């Protein structure tokens, strides 16, 4: 590639950063109560809704929205569309941050968080969660390795630790050289491993709620759920890249990469079409389409979810719309909201644990979730500011 990725090296403490820190601080306060006074002091969780916003959004949506990493890696590295190479590093970084936060969110949501390592030693192969946990751990490791070249590139032969730490310069440099060699030799292996792990992981999340046949609404209780989760995650991969790319350009004062983004957007209808075909086929085959129109909360939630998927499918087929940065961004946003709503529907809205119980996330739950989002944005900012993630602007 002729154009090199470079750290942005912009001023770090902008007003936006203080806003992010504020959200994180608020989340930390709620987290304090959750850890020292129990879930009951912060959340609206109950025996009927043991999974709430933290699982539905921080974990289920977090994983799906990190799909930009493996879809971009697959398109560029495996299917050889090297034109889109500038999009790979930001996508992989975002996926790493996303999975890191998923891990952190799980830690918040586990009652006995100090036993989290038990997943490593006590194996229960019949549990869907067991598979989910291993894929998160392995894929997070793979994403870490995939991000190593950025660190190596930035600091190789360029380690200048201050004062007493200076004696570590040589060993650090030696280590970076070894890592460089290691990455160069093995990256292909990890790129494919990342895609395979994502396949397994995304689909397993779709299997999770299938253990509750008498609780999950028929619109979402389908043996095809793993495949639907996988295809919808693939569909949201590129829209996430578009979403982040557009916002990053805006907030870092860079020229938007409209040409690249509208170029890669042409694959989205392909994925969305596959998903919609499977979804409709499944509903029709199981004969449950009627319950989408019964006016219930679940039926309406499904209709909204479906519209958010279907509208960008038709719009993004048109070249003129893909070339319009605003419409492109809105289409990407629609797909993202569709996937978020779909995960909410499966994990919360479509779950009926019996009469007399309802759930709406508490202020504390929202607070912690916003804190995670803020932390993610902050990590992204740190990443692009000090590591070569974004390519220097064209022309």
């Amino acid at each position, binding site marked *: *590639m002729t154009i090199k990725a470079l750290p942005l090296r912009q001023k770090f403490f902008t007003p936006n950063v203080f806003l992010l820190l504020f959200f994180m601080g608020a989340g930390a306060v709620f987290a304090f109560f959750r850890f*020292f006074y*129990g*879930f*009951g002091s912060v959340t609206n969780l*109950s*025996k*009927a809704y*043991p999974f709430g916003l933290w699982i539905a959004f921080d974990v289920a949506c977090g994983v799906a929205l990190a799909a930009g990493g493996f879809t971009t890696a697959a398109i560029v*590295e*495996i*299917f*050889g*569309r*090297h*034109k889109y190479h500038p999009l790979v590093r930001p996508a992989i970084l975002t996926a790493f941050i996303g999975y890191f936060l998923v891990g952190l969110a799980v830690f918040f949501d*586990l*009652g*006995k*968080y100090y*036993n989290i390592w*038990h*997943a490593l030693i*006590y194996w*229960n*192969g*019949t*549990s*869907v*969660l*067991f*598979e989910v*946990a291993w894929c998160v751990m392995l894929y997070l490791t793979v994403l870490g390795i995939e991000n190593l070249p950025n660190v190596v590139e930035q600091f190789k032969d360029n380690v200048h630790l201050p004062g007493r730490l200076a004696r570590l310069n040589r060993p650090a440099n030696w280590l970076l050289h070894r890592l460089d060699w290691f990455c160069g030799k093995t990256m*292909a292996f990890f*790129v*494919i*491993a990342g895609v*395979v792990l994502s*396949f*397994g992981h995304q*689909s*397993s999340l779709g*299997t*999770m*709620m*299938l*253990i*509750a*046949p*008498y*609780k999950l609404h028929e619109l979402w209780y389908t*043996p*095809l759920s*793993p*495949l639907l989760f*996988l295809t919808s995650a693939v569909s949201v991969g590129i829209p996430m890249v578009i979403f982040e790319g557009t916002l990053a350009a805006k907030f870092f004062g860079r020229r938007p990469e409209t040409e690249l983004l509208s170029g890669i957007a*042409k*694959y989205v209808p392909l994925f969305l079409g596959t998903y919609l075909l499977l979804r409709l086929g499944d509903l029709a085959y199981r004969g449950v389409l009627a319950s989408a129109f019964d006016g219930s909360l679940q039926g309406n939630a499904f209709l909204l979810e479906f519209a958010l998927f279907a509208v960008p499918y038709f719009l993004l087929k048109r070249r003129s719309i893909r070339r319009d940065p605003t419409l492109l961004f809105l289409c990407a946003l629609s797909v993202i909201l569709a996937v978020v709503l779909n995960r909410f529907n499966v994990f919360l809205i479509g*779950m009926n*644990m019996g009469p007399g119980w309802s759930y709406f996330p508490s202020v504390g739950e929202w607070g912690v979730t916003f804190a995670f989002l803020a932390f993610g944005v902050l990590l992204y900012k740190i990443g692009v500011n000090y590591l070569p993630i974004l390519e220097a602007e064209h022309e």
Partner: protein
Amino acid sequence: MDLSRRKFLKLGAVAGGSAVCNLARPAAAREMPDIDPDWYGMLNDSTRCIGCKACMVACKKENKLPPESTLGDAATFGAPLYDSPRELSEQTYTLIQLHRDEKTGAATFVKRQCMHCADAACQSACIVGALKKQKNGAVKYDAGMCMGCRYCMVACPFNVPQFEWHAALPSIRKCTLCSETRLEKGEATACASACPAGAITFGKRSELLKIARARIAAEPERYLDQVYGENEVGGTCVLYLTRKDVAFAGLGLQPFGYKPVSDLTESIQHRIFQYFIPPIAVYGVLGGIMFYNQNRKRKAGTEGGDDDY
């Protein structure tokens, strides 16, 4: 080569797609769970229960659980009021609920507790295996292994496992079938021992079924000809009898199917990871495509220069 790159990619996509479709299709239903005739259990005869709640008291004593008042706590009244739970909770392992028939107005008392399923959904769901079916029939919970993920609560069709929402370091709580405290000493469960009306019969599941059948046969005009738990969700160790004119659904015992609820998830999991062949196959296909593309680029001698899709 007449196989153009485009065609190759299309073929690859079709092959990969059908492989994935194949994975997602559930395998044939698993075999029904083996039911051990030596498993212990309880037969709850709702036609005999008088609603005295002696079983609830005995359970609280046995498990050293605090009373739970829905009227107000010690802080409100200056003294703790007696036990009046409305639902199973982390402080209430068993509960007597009153159900009134809409037509006849007849009251029926029903005892709720862990059903100690033959193929327990919680055991299938638990990520670390903290919930396990024991040789004596009890589904036992191990707080030391548990991670507190609450997936067992999602999985249980009877909504039995309860979480300590107000503890800093919470555990799951539920009926133990007095497995450690009494069964090992050869004693019956605390609730069954306390029942003054003979509504709770403790014993081996196989024998309880015989007793239930005998009661139905002896008084066919009194009992509905069905033993709840014999087949529901693959069979449970706690069984129920009901009046002829009161359906189990009217007692809050839902008409579940005969398959274990974990049937679909376990079939899918098994299919996706069968001998690890499917993941390795996907890996191989993707690796092949990557190798093909890189090789083609190397031959062309260019790094960039995509042909457009």
